[in-house]
C-alpha cells in the first residue's frame, strides 16, 4: 500500500504545533499576503520559519498556500516572497493560477501543488500540470469515489483529496457571488460566504410560497468511512480543510484521521461510529459525504442553517508535566472547577474520564475554579500527559 500523507490546516503557529502533535504528516498554511484565507490568522515570514523548524525536527512537512488569483496590484513583490519561502525551507507551495505556477518555476526550485481552486476533475488535466512541473494536484471536491478511482488508475501523478471540512458550493475558483454581492473577492481571500445565506426562490417573478429558505450551502465533508477505499486506491495525500478552525477542532479531527489511517495501514479493526462520534465532539456543523457517494441529494444540503453547540468543551492545553508530582501545567481556555469530570485528548485518543480532585495556581495555592482564560494552573491527572494534549469537559 502507498504511504498516504495526512495533511492538516494550520491557521497559526499554535495550531501548526497542535496538528503535528496529533499526527499530521504535513501542514499547510498561508502567509499574511498572497494566500486565499485572508481572514485566517495567517503567518508572518518569521512565524513560517518557526513552523518549518518545528515541523522538520520531527520529519514533517510544511506547505505554503500562495493560492489567490492575483490582480495586477496584488502581485507586486510576489517573486521576492517566493524566494524568501524557499530560503526558509518550506517543502512546497500551493498555487491556484497559471501565473503563480510560472513564477514559482522561474524564481525558485520549490515543488508546487495545484490548488483545488483549479477544480481539476480529470487525469488529462493532472498530466497537463505534471508536465508543467507540478509535484501534486489537489483534486476538485466534486468527484465521486468511482471517478477518483478511475482517475487514480489513469495517472501515477501525486494526487491529494479532501476528506474533511467545509466545501465550496460552487466549483472552486469559479465563484464570484461574493464579488457581486459584497465587493469582496472570493478568489483573493475575501469570500463573504454568500452561498451560506438564505434566499427566496421566485418563479415567473412571483415568490414561491415555501417556508424553508432556498440555500446553496452544503454540509461539511466527513469521509471517515471512505478513507480505507481512498488509501486502497492509492491516493497520496488526504487533506483536512479549515485554516480558520479552532485548536479543539484541529486536534480532534486530526487525531481521528491519524488513528483511522494507522488502523487501515495496520489492518486493525475500525469502529467507524466511534470515530464519527469523536469528530462530533468538536464539529459545530452537520457533516455529510459530499460527492463521494455520488451526486449529493437534498440530505447533503444545509437548509435553515444554524450552528450546533459542540458537545465537549475545550478547557485548556497542557504546557508541561511534572512527573514527580503527577501534575499537568495547564494553559486555561475555558472555566472549570474542582469536582468537574474531564478527559484528556492525547495522540492515542481520549483518556478515560476523571474527576478533578484539586486545582492549584502556579505558586501551588489551592483553587476551587480555573476562571481566567490564559491563566496557568496545575492539575493532578490520572496518567502522564504531554505538552499540547488538550483538556476537555465530558
Amino acid at each position, binding site marked *: 500500500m502507498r504511504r498516504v500523507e495526512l495533511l492538516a490546516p494550520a491557521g497559526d503557529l499554535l495550531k501548526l504545533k497542535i496538528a503535528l502533535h496529533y499526527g499530521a504528516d504535513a501542514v499547510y498554511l498561508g502567509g499574511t499576503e498572497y494566500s486565499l484565507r*485572508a*481572514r485566517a490568522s495567517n503567518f508572518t515570514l518569521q512565524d513560517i520559519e518557526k513552523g518549518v523548524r518545528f515541523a522538520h525536527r520531527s520529519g514533517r512537512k510544511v506547505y505554503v498556500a500562495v493560492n*489567490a*488569483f*492575483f*490582480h*495586477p496590484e*496584488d*502581485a507586486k513583490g510576489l517573486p521576492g516572497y517566493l524566494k524568501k519561502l524557499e530560503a526558509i525551507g518550506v517543502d512546497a507551495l500551493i498555487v491556484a*493560477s*497559471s*501565473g503563480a505556477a*510560472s513564477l514559482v518555476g522561474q524564481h525558485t526550485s520549490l515543488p508546487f501543488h495545484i490548488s483545488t481552486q*483549479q477544480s*481539476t*476533475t*480529470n487525469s*488529462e*488535466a493532472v498530466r*497537463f*500540470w505534471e508536465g508543467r512541473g507540478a509535484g501534486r494536484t489537489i483534486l*476538485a471536491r466534486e*468527484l465521486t469515489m468511482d*471517478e477518483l478511482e*478511475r482517475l487514480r488508475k489513469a495517472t501515477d501523478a501525486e494526487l491529494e483529496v479532501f476528506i474533511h471540512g467545509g466545501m465550496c*458550493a*460552487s*466549483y472552486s*475558483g469559479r*465563484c*464570484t457571488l461574493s*464579488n457581486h*454581492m459584497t*465587493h*469582496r*473577492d472570493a*478568489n*483573493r481571500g*475575501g469570500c463573504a460566504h*454568500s*452561498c451560506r*445565506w*438564505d*434566499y*427566496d*426562490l421566485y*418563479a*415567473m*417573478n412571483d415568490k414561491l*410560497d*415555501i417556508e424553508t429558505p*432556498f*440555500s*446553496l450551502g452544503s454540509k461539511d465533508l466527513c469521509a471517515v468511512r471512505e478513507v480505507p477505499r481512498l488509501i486502497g486506491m492509492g491516493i497520496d495525500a488526504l487533506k483536512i480543510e479549515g485554516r480558520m478552525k479552532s485548536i479543539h477542532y484541529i486536534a480532534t479531527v486530526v487525531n481521528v484521521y491519524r488513528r483511522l489511517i494507522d488502523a487501515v495501514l495496520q489492518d486493525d479493526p475500525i469502529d467507524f461510529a466511534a470515530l464519527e462520534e469523536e469528530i462530533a465532539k468538536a464539529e459545530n456543523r452537520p457533516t455529510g459525504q459530499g*460527492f463521494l457517494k455520488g*451526486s*449529493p441529494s*437534498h440530505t*447533503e*444540503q444545509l437548509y435553515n442553517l444554524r450552528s450546533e453547540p459542540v458537545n465537549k468543551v475545550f478547557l485548556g492545553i497542557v504546557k508541561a508535566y511534572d512527573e514527580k508530582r503527577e501534575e499537568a501545567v495547564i494553559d486555561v481556555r475555558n472555566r472549570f472547577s474542582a469536582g468537574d469530570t474531564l478527559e484528556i485528548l492525547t495522540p492515542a485518543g481520549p483518556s478515560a474520564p476523571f474527576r478533578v480532585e484539586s486545582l492549584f495556581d502556579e505558586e501551588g495555592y489551592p483553587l476551587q475554579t480555573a476562571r481566567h482564560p490564559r491563566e496557568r494552573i496545575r492539575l493532578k491527572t490520572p496518567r502522564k500527559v504531554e505538552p499540547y494534549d488538550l483538556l476537555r469537559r465530558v
Partner: protein
Amino acid sequence: MELFVKTSADHLSDLLEKEVDGIIVGVEGFSVRMKENVAPSALAMLAAKTKRADKRLWLNLNAFIHETALDALEVFLGQIAELPIDGVLFADFAIMRLAEKKGLVSRLVYHAETSPTFAEDVRFFERAGVQAVVLGRELTIKSMETIAAKTEIPLVFVGHGRLNMFHSRRRLLSNYFAITESDDEKGMPEDSFTLREESRNEHYPVYEDIHGTHIFRDSPTQSFTVWERLEKILSFFIVDGLFYDERRLREIVDDCIAVQKGARGGDIAKKYPDHDEGFFFRETFAKEEEEKKR
C-alpha cells in the same frame, strides 16, 4: 477589435448577414451556459456556412470535463482538427493537453471566466502558443489595461450580457424541491426561476442542467461607455446572447457595430438602462481592512 457573438444555430443566419466577425456556439456534452449546444455531427455544415459568409466559427467548450468524458473529448477534438473551426474556447486543461497531442493549440482561446487576472497568467498562455486569452470577468478596466500593457497575445473580453457568477455540480433546484416537497416547479420553463437575498433588491436568474446549477448576475453588463478604452487593449469583444431573444440580440449587435463605426458609446449606453458596467469601475477587495480603507 473584432466582434464575436455567443449564440445558437437558430440565430446564426441572421448574424451572418451582419458585420460581426465571428460566431461562438456550444457543443453537446462539452459546453455550458450556451443558448444552444449543437451536435458534433452538425459542426461540419455549420463551419461551411460560416466560411461561406466569410466569418469565423469558435466553439465554447467550457464545461468541466470529468474522467468518464475524456475518451469522447479526445475523439471530438480529433474531429474538429479536420474542420475549419477557427477557435476553441476552453477552461479545462484536459482540452489543452489533448490539443497539444492533436496540434490544435494555436486554435485555443483560454476562457475560465474568473482568470486570468494578472499579466503572468496571460504570459503562461502566450508561451504555450494559444491563439488568445479571455480576461477574467471580475477585472476593472484599469487592471485590464495594466495586463494589456505587459502582454503581447490577443486579449478577449465578454463585455455584453448577463455574467455567470456561480456554477455548482449540485442539483440545487431539484434538491430544494425535494426537501420542501414542493410541486411548484412542475410546468415551469427552466429559465423562469430567480433567487433573491432578503436584504438586496436583486433577482439572480438560476437554472439547472445536466452539468449542475448556474446562477447569474441580476443586471447584464454593457461596455459601450468604455468602448474606446477596450478597443485599445482587446483584439476580440464577445457579446453573450444567452439571456436575449433574437430581436434584442440583433439590436445589441447593431449597437456594437454602430459604436465600432464611430457612434458615441455614451449615447448608445442610454438605451441600456437595465444594464450596468459590471466590474469595470467596481473594485473588489481581498481583505476587509482594504475595504475599510476605502
